[in-house]
């Protein structure tokens, strides 16, 4: 008796543990701190503001094993998680600026690079950081009793331990070919991600099943606090840095 199949049989005596396999995918929305804008020459004229956009996107996919208590309330879940983290500092899209009445007439910046003798700039459209993680999620769930056969809600607490397996820094120069060899002069102003990043989450979700055990679920987890590790050129806020939304496919094992 497993998964959503168990939902239909909660009135039966429960004397065995349930084992499930999950495949989960979803985005993570992360609030980040302001990046280092010091090397950007102001673009604004009177007031000399620096109108630079920064954004972070994360996609995660994981396979998780779940063991559920016989009464189908408590569950422990763990597995293997892949995460792709994309960060960008650069030109703010023209349409966004139009709405904010914050118009800039060019799509690149003067980025000051280190030069002891002279004042030196490279014309940069954007700086990107692509980071790949393999991680171990550890999750505890509490499933609520449900009067519906194919529906179950739960609360979840999760800790993710993500290990950096690849990182690439990319600079989009205005002179793409000519300045490519000097990308390090730009990226050296920004930190690379730490080898390990650990965060905790708390949230809720629900599952719907077909009555035969297989089901799909959705959950929304809020970032509580960061245990350790920097995410690189756009450091995340240490607390309440966003949330992640995941779609899960439940496959009962036995």
């Amino acid at each position, binding site marked *: 008796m497993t998964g959503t199949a168990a939902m239909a049989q909660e009135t039966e005596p429960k004397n065995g543990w349930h084992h499930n396999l999950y495949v989960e995918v979803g985005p993570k929305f992360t609030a980040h701190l302001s990046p280092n804008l010091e090397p950007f020459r*102001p673009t604004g004229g*009177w007031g000399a503001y620096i109108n630079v956009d920064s954004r972070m996107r994360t996609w995660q996919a994981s396979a998780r094993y779940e063991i559920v208590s016989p009464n189908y309330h408590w569950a422990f879940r763990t597995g293997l998680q892949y995460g792709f983290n994309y960060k960008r500092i650069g030109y703010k899209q023209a349409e966004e600026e139009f709405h904010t009445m914050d118009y800039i007439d060019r799509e690149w910046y003067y980025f000051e690079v280190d030069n002891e003798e002279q004042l030196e700039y490279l014309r940069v459209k954007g700086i990107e950081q692509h980071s790949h993680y393999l991680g171990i999620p550890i999750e505890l769930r509490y499933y609520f009793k449900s009067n519906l056969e194919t529906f179950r809600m739960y609360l979840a607490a999760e800790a993710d331990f993500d290990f950096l397996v690849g990182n690439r820094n990319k600079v989009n120069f205005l*002179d793409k070919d000519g300045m490519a060899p000097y990308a390090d002069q730009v990226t050296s102003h920004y930190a690379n991600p730490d080898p390990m990043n650990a965060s905790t989450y708390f949230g809720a979700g629900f599952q719907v099943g077909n009555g035969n055990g297989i089901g799909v679920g959705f959950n929304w987890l809020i970032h509580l606090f960061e245990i350790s590790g920097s995410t690189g050129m756009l450091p995340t806020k240490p607390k309440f840095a966003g949330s992640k939304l995941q779609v899960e496919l439940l496959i009962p094992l036995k």
Partner: protein
Amino acid sequence: MKKYLIIAVALIVMNACSKSDFKETQYIADPDFPGLPIYSEMGYNTFGAYINQNVFYCNQNDRPFYLVADRDNLTMTLYGWCNNDNFNMVFTLPIDTTYHLEDYHSLLALDGKSFTIDTVPTSCIVKMEGRYAPEIESIYSGYIKFEKVQQVLVDKADAEVVVSGKFQFRAFTPDGTRIDVTGGRFDLGVDNANFVNFRR
């Protein structure tokens, strides 16, 4: 008069043809000196000073200054605003031939150089222009220092020379009124569009 007319026309034409991307003024207010831009060495095309209790500052967005070299002098004119009216401050520096002023790159020789402001030809002479500008008869003390003059590279290519520095002086008008110019600073991006050499 004809000479200055030629200079003005030449500079206007050259400025219109300039492809420099550093033409805009990047004005950042100095919290310690209300009304003045911060002292910077980045080519923000700003300048300012207190003239007694009034603020003299740059009021345009497009390089409000010119440098003109002739046989004996380098003249730096700051086109600004004071007392709600146009107000220019003109520094005439005694540049002898040892400076080899050929083009705007030659300004790099001024890096770190300081000039006494006085009324004698061997020092820097200051003139104020404008409807309400006072006439300077004598200078009690003062200086102009080019704190940093540096080449600017963009994408590894020459872009301009940044001339930045400070100035202050005390002057007197013919009727004995004292004029204290304090907190003076300038941060100017110079290229062929705003540098003319009549020495050649």
